[in-house]
């Protein structure tokens, strides 16, 4: 094996793309399980997902070793670690909430798309983190961002199942009606808490890095917009009783805002936050 820096970078890329490919297969099998639960191949869905997670874990650990810092600097690192955490949360959460198993196809499809897009637009290059990243509050900020995105994805996964009206049968439980509304509300509420903590931790980090808690920067404003959108969603559920398909579409719309706020703003608008993210 070529252990030169170029060789290590190639191995890093290889692990990344192996994980992406396995996630793609797992996503397909989870979607097939929703529509064709009687096919024997769908029994492999969880095993392939396990293999994808293992490859993702190996890739992240190797990259961590190579870079000398946790995976939270470049876009590729952030997306890869978010997908890893999302899959871990999905696997653990469906033990307690079996209804969440139905969201696997949706979640893994989006994860594969994200990994593929970022993988083609970025490299596995490593860089030393700027000094402004040397604070625990950044770690808290990133983790709670990821947890919020995961909650938003799971809520939208339930919404997807609700909108498509799938009834797979077999052992897969699909939430319906009030149970689905309940789950969407609870995931949104918990995600809102994570989002609030993310904003608070981000403000503390911003003060460490730039000497001010809030500067109306693009990404800060968009995170506030995202917070307000989710506040609006919770108001519409609690006060106006939105449920069913209307709630499902609302959940999708909020997810689009969330993903744009977290990952898209730095691509479109100039931001002090984005200037630190290595491509």
């Amino acid at each position, binding site marked *: 094996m070529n252990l030169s820096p170029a060789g290590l970078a190639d191995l890093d890329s290889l692990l990344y793309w192996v994980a992406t490919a396995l996630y793609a297969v797992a996503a397909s099998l989870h979607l097939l399980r929703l529509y064709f639960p009687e096919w024997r191949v769908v029994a492999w869905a969880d095993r392939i997902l396990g293999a994808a997670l293992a490859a993702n874990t190996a890739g992240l650990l190797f990259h961590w070793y190579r870079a000398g810092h946790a995976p939270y600097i470049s876009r590729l690192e952030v997306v890869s670690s978010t997908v890893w955490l999302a899959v871990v949360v999905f696997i653990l959460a469906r033990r307690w909430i079996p209804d969440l198993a139905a969201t696997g196809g949706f979640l893994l499809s989006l994860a594969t798309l994200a990994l593929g897009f970022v993988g083609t637009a970025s490299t596995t290059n490593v860089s*030393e983190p*700027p*000094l*402004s990243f*040397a*604070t625990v509050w950044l770690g808290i900020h990133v983790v709670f961002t990821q947890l919020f995105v995961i909650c938003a994805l799971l809520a939208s996964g339930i919404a997807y199942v609700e909108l498509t009206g799938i009834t797979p049968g077999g052992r897969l439980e699909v939430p319906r009606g*009030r*149970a689905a*509304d*309940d789950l969407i*509300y*609870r995931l949104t*509420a*918990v995600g*809102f*808490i994570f989002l*609030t*903590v993310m904003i*608070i931790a981000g403000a*503390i980090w911003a*003060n*460490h*890095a*730039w*000497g001010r*808690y809030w*500067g*109306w*920067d*693009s990404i800060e*404003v*968009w995170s*506030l*917009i995202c917070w*307000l*959108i989710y*506040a*609006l969603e919770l*108001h*519409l*559920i*609690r*006060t*106006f009783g939105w*449920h069913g398909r209307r709630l499902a579409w609302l959940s999708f719309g909020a997810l689009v805002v969330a993903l744009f706020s977290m990952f898209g*703003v730095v691509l479109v*608008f*100039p931001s002090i936050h984005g200037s*630190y993210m290595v491509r």
Partner: protein
Amino acid sequence: MVVNKARGKLRTVVRLFRSPYVAIALIAGFIIASSVGVLVPQEKTSGTAAVEAFRKAHPVLRPVLEAVDAFRVFQAPWFIALVGLLALSTLVCTVDQLARARRAAAFARSRAPVALDSGAAELILHGSPEVAAPRVEGLLRRLGLRVWRSGATFRAWNTTGRWGSPLFHFGLVLIFGAVVAGAALQWSTTVVLTEGQTFVPGQGPPHGYDQPWNRQAPDPARLPQLKLIKHYPRYARRGYAPDAASELVVDGVPRLLRWGAPLSVRGLTLHQGRRYGALVEVVLVPGGESQGAAAQSGPRDPGPGAPPAFGGLYPLPDGSFHGGLVFLNQQDAEKQVRVADLPPLRTTASFRLVPGPKAGRYELPFDRRFQLEVVVPPESPQARPVVLSVGESLTLARWRLEFRSLRYWTTLTLSAAPLTPLLFALAWWCVAMLALAALFPERRLELVLEGVGEGGAMRSRVRLRTWAGRGAFAFPERLKEALEGLNEEEAKTS
């Protein structure tokens, strides 16, 4: 009469702000206004150059945007008014929600007889009411409800989470107030220092001081004396880049100020600024000989409070030309290239600051770790880059370019925000109340057991009415399933 009219108007205003439609409209308005603030470059964050470029690129939109203060959205009076209305709406809703939470708690404490009409849900349990009642009570307690029972009549509830939402909104109202009060009380000032320079409060103005709410100048007695020294024999260590840090003498005490590690000084917070770099002093001397003022060796003190000066080379009375080139270094960005006119040579030269052979040896003085790369255009005899250390010179035609000195400069920010701890305490309070509301959704029920049948075949008819808050939509169905499960348990045990 006047008082009644005023009361009537007040009631109308309260009714208006109590409306969830108004709250949602205000939130939506805030979202739209914030979106404008992101789509249109803002003077404060993007700078005047970006704003001017946008104005030129959109001549049709320009008058509309200027009329609504779109280039200063977050400081515009209408935006501040919108935030104020949102705060008012939140306050009114909070008071309303607190009243409802008290009523829900009052229900829980009520010992009035339970009377359920025929509209209540029904199901049948095995055994007489006297037999079924303890099992039902046990089940309700296992579901996390508090239970009041009188014979075969039950009230059960969990209204803890009911308080979460109003207390969260109450926290938001306090945050609004703390932000306004904090803005009036806080201030910050920026000091620009070069190596060896001392900031003495009261002598020379600090730079960049601007507070929209509080135009009062900071009390000089509160400001510390700051002297910048850029030498790290004590602080040099592996994995640490002190070029983004300042060694200061603060009120006579040596302190290290690093990124992400602000210092507390006299109750103020001292931050290492984002803008820092190197000030290079170069001199162009005629005939290759140092003359007059330009012959002085060693760096010149630019004076207290004076910012680094950038520009081309300026003539001195002795015929030499002198210039200070300011290099800006943000985090790990490349040193910028500076182009300066060389008037006597009628050409330009580009200057770049590069790490020297001893760049990583942080125990050395700053000026020994960097070098100056000079490139003069091809029409000059010297057409290749030349690297100079401090004290070295370069011959250009009948002139000599001397690299006189290299000094570190930085911006330092002194600030005071006395209400910040309160703001963060309120923010964490809001998070805790959100968790309370989300994790403990309100559930209430009234339940009556009525005997049906006779003797050993007696059963209990359950009349049940439930109330479930958001997040507990499925509670009624789950409760019925659980009650029916009691029959299965009974069948198993018998």
